[in-house]
């Protein structure tokens, strides 16, 4: 499966025998059971798999939000577990854009301010309003999260991730709450960022159709990678049949 034994800048993420156990009282949940794979730079990757198969866990670990129980994660040439707390912070701040499954907007900030919260600490961000436009949310920019629908909140969360123009975009079900029309707008935005800036993009989804636009589709089941499909001819987001 590993295309290149030596690490180089063309591989954004590499994981080796990654496992993650959650210990809850007396029961142990093996969320990941030995995940080894490479994610090449600039790829648009889609993660598919049944609920509970470990997709979010995987994304959290490579995004530096959680640490594995065993195994290694490499970001380009660096081993993530070698990072100090400060390096990890900088990694999250400058390299990763994350769209959380639960959106996690700050309730006391407006949509636009939620985006600004991230651009405030980025090196070369988009103007927050640009990011809002990219997800068709410019009209609701000054609303508070509690005044937005679930899908609108989700789009703000995506705008927030896009706005910092990160090297990698990690999206946990970014279209889960969206209708096909808005979903396509969002996917287009993700595709554009991916194309324009060469952003490595990983998208978790339950919608198999979205896989058609990916360069690479990784299938999870039961905490393991069961299949990887390389798509030589990804289609455009507009062509996706929802």
């Amino acid at each position, binding site marked *: 499966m590993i295309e290149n034994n030596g690490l180089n800048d063309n591989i954004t993420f590499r994981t080796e025998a990654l496992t993650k156990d959650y210990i*809850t*009282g007396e029961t142990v949940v093996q969320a990941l059971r030995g995940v080894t794979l490479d994610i090449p730079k600039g790829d648009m990757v889609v993660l598919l798999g049944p609920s509970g198969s470990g997709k979010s866990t995987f994304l*959290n670990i490579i*995004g530096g*939000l*959680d*640490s594995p129980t065993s195994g290694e994660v490499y970001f380009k040439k660096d081993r993530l577990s070698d990072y100090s*707390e*400060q390096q990890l*912070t*900088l990694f*999250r*701040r*400058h390299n*990763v854009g*994350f769209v*959380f499954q*639960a*959106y*996690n*907007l*700050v*309730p*006391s*900030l407006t949509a636009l*301010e*939620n985006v*600004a*919260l*991230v651009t*405030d*600490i*980025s090196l070369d961000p988009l103007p927050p309003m640009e990011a809002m436009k990219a997800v068709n949310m410019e009209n609701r920019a000054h609303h508070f*999260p*509690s005044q937005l*629908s*679930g899908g609108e*909140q989700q789009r703000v969360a995506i705008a*927030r991730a896009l706005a910092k123009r990160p090297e990698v975009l990690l999206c946990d079900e970014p279209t889960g709450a969206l209708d096909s029309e808005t979903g396509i707008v969002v996917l287009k935005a993700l595709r554009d960022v991916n194309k324009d800036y060469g952003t490595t993009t990983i998208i978790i989804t339950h919608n198999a159709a979205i896989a058609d636009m990916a360069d690479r589709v990784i299938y999870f089941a039961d905490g393991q990678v069961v299949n990887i499909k390389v798509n030589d001819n990804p289609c455009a987001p507009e062509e996706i049949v929802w």
Partner: protein
Amino acid sequence: MMEALNKKLVRDLWNIKGQMLAIIMVMACGIATFIMSFGVSDSLTLSRDVYYDRYQFADVFAQLKRAPYGVRQQILEIPGVSAVEVRVVFGVTIQVDNMVEPASGKLISLPDGRTPLLNNLYLRSGRMILPDEQGAILCSEAFATAHGFTLGDRISMVINGHKRSLSIVGIVLSPEYVYSLGPGAMFPDDKRFGVFWMSQRSLEAAVDMNGAFNDVAIRQDRGSNTAVIKQELDIVLKPYGGLVAYARDEQMSNWFVQNELDQLRVMGLFAPVIFLAVAAFLINVVMTRQVATQRVQIGMLKAVGYSNGEISRHYLKMVLMVVVVGSIVGIAAGVWLGAGMTNMYTDFFHFPILQFSFSAEVMIFSVLFCTLAAVIGTLIAIGQAATLPPAEAMRPESPLQFRRTLLERMGLEKYFSPLFRIVIRHVERRPVRTLLSTLGVGLSMSILIFALFMEDSITYLMEVQFDMAQRQDLSLGFTHPRAISALEEIRLMPGVIKVEPLRRVAVLLKSEHYAKRSSILGIRPNPDLHRILDRDLRAARVPAQGLALSSKLAEVLHVRRGDLVTVEVLEDRRPILKIRVAEIVEEFIGLNAFMDIDQLNRHLNEGPVITGASIMVDPLWNGPLYQKIKEIPAIASMNILRKAREIFREVMGENLLKMVAINVVFASLISFGVIYNTARIALSERGRELASLRVLGLTRGEVAYILFGEMTIIILMAIPVGLFIGYMMVLGMAQSMDTELFRLPAMVDKDTYGLSVIVVVLSAVLSFYLVWRQVENIDLVSAQKGVE
């Protein structure tokens, strides 16, 4: 940079303004009591020191029978003595027209043609005495104020058996009489005791003391040995009937002032330290929980790349707002109340000038202390949230591992409704939090008990003093010892129901190197009026042999029952005796020794004589009796105990009680602040869960039951905790408030406990109501949208 984060800060603060206000209040109360108490104590101490210094308050004092002027030179030659002032001091009886009972006074000589070297006077109004001026006096301000005397008014007094009418030419204050206590009086009574000054030569002539003096005041060199000077002075004065010399620490006024200041310092230390510590603890707990409710947001901030430092700074800014506002309010309130309280103390401390002093150190310390508590609380909470991997922090409180609770495991579960089970599981699943909340509410309650106990204690003290120990209506003191037959004369006076003899003799008590000036009071073996009380505060028999010492006096002398003490009698032939301590008796005020009157007289080698009497009077006859007493020159002093009790309440009690009242208000505010915060935080921690329950069909009442059920359990547990800690604080306070002047019994009324419970319950009810209004506003829809 980070503008969005600052906006979040401002809006978050605004959203929890109620809680922030409550924390600010707790902090301000803690700081204010601290600054107020230290301010009062520092201000009074400074006022005293400045006064003593500017008006040359003497270092060593002595009284004697009579010595010729030339002896002054001999005293001046004692090594270490830098200045000597010799005077004539004479006790007088004053007749004030609009007062039935007589007043007593002291007439002090002023050198003609120069200002005194020591114990100089502060002239409030009028002028000083001219050299050799006849018929003119200076009057102490306290006495003048009490009677409304002004310049030019005449006072008639009996001096050495002759009635004289003297004109007031000046109103003055003296460092020797900051606290002015009449002979035999327990408390200062400015109506019944006054101090007056007149020309030395005029006074000498009036009392047949030409070219002689009977009172010495000394200033000693810095660094010289007071004990040696006292000894030397005693040797010089011995041939002239000198009584044992004493230093400032035994000078009556100064001793009282010192004792009051000590008391104030204890109160001013104990109470505010407790308040501040409790406030700091509460701020800490509340801040920790406040920040902990932001755990998910902290996780998100970390996930998008904010560093721990930036996140900490963000929340510390929030704390800083609270701390800054709390400090400003606390300092302002503390200074304002402190200045007011200091002013009130001048009712019985006669200082000419009040110097306010609020030390910067005290302010800085109290502010830093609270700040530190708040900052540590915040950092703990941030630490807890920030050490978690962001993925975990963002997970809204991992589904908790519920266990069957202790009560359920004990098989009591069948008695519990499902709702109650939810409540009890919440209480049990977070033992540390439950404990801290319980402790918080308990502590806020305990300071309330602590604040209130002072009044209980003083009331109790007065009951013991006046209803059990000194049950007489009047105490009379004679100018000279009289034969016991004088009792018969008194018995025949109008309205007298019962008379008991008193024989008081001034002594110096010694045991090893401990010594204390006091007096031995001879009373009947089984007195009915002036009684002594045993350790359990029951009337005790006066021992047939030996001395009965008050427990404090025994402590000062380091003696126990059965030990021998040396008694140096400070009167007449001045015998030195060795007497065994036969009994230790309880007394909350003063340092007294008691003895069987016959035995005392035998020890003094005297027949059956008395120096005073305790009297029970039919109140209807008060007027005629006082009139009669006023006419008898042999009666030097008369103390009306009912009046003493009133004065105690008015002067000492009231000032103390004002401080108590302030503390009670603060303690109540703190209670409320803590309980409100605890309830409000519980709501923010569980708002979502409660909203879900509402969506599932629970009524508001049922949701409130879950929310407040937990709080109610905490409050119920906190009550015994609060009562216990409160009582411990009372014990601690009673132990530290143990001065020679005055002991505070550790006495807490049931009412105090009751009131503190009521305040806590009321705070809870009010907090529940306020939080309940927020429960009503839980937006079920937005709660389901995943927005907190």
